[in-house]
């Protein structure tokens, strides 16, 4: 069975400090990977997606970047946090091109508070 793990569970960071959030998928090779962001009380917005190692596409510009250093790992980062980065970050995966379905499977999320 596939599992998806996000870290850290929660972070409190200062404005201007760096950030790195991670996501690991086990039990699934070559998944499509996604980062979503949710403001408190808001809906989910897709930030990035990746269909293969080393390749990441940006969907929404929020002064964040993403990388996929390994097939099973997706990293979200920034060198300088803004207050507007606060929220809940969710990593998700789906079967890759040619897969059975496009269903999204989400991790448990990382709560970020920027002060």
């Amino acid at each position, binding site marked *: 069975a596939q599992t998806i793990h996000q870290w850290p569970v929660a972070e409190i960071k200062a404005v201007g400090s760096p950030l790195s959030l991670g996501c690991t998928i086990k039990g699934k090779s070559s998944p*499509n990977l996604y980062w979503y962001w949710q403001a408190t009380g*808001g*809906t989910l917005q*897709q930030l990035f997606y990746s269909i293969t190692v080393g390749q990441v596409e940006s969907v929404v510009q929020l002064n964040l970047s993403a990388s996929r250093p390994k097939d099973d790992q997706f990293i979200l980062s920034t060198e300088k946090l803004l207050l507007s980065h606060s929220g809940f970050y969710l990593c998700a995966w789906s079967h890759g091109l040619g897969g059975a*379905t*496009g*269903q*999204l499977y989400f991790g448990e999320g990382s709560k970020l508070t920027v002060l």
Partner: protein
Amino acid sequence: GDQVEQSPSALSLHEGTGSALRCNFTTTMRAVQWFQQNSRGSLINLFYLASGTKENGRLKSTFNSKESYSTLHIRDAQLEDSGTYFCAAGSNTGYQNFYFGKGTSLTVIP
């Protein structure tokens, strides 16, 4: 504009009663997912539909791509059903760009 319009934004149900949530789509969608977001923030998969109707216990969902809508019916509501429900619809296969609705906050009252 929003590609997924979800209604109602909030809903209160007494235990044992039921209701329906709806999502309308402004473009042709190929698949829809329904999620329940719990108090921790985790998204629980409820349904994934490319067409037709699926049922799971007290929940039933329908997706009509031609008429551009999907519904989630809850019957015999229980306290643990409280939470925020999101629909998400995708217009492509393979790489999925799912557009999320704004959510329905459901409160089940004893």
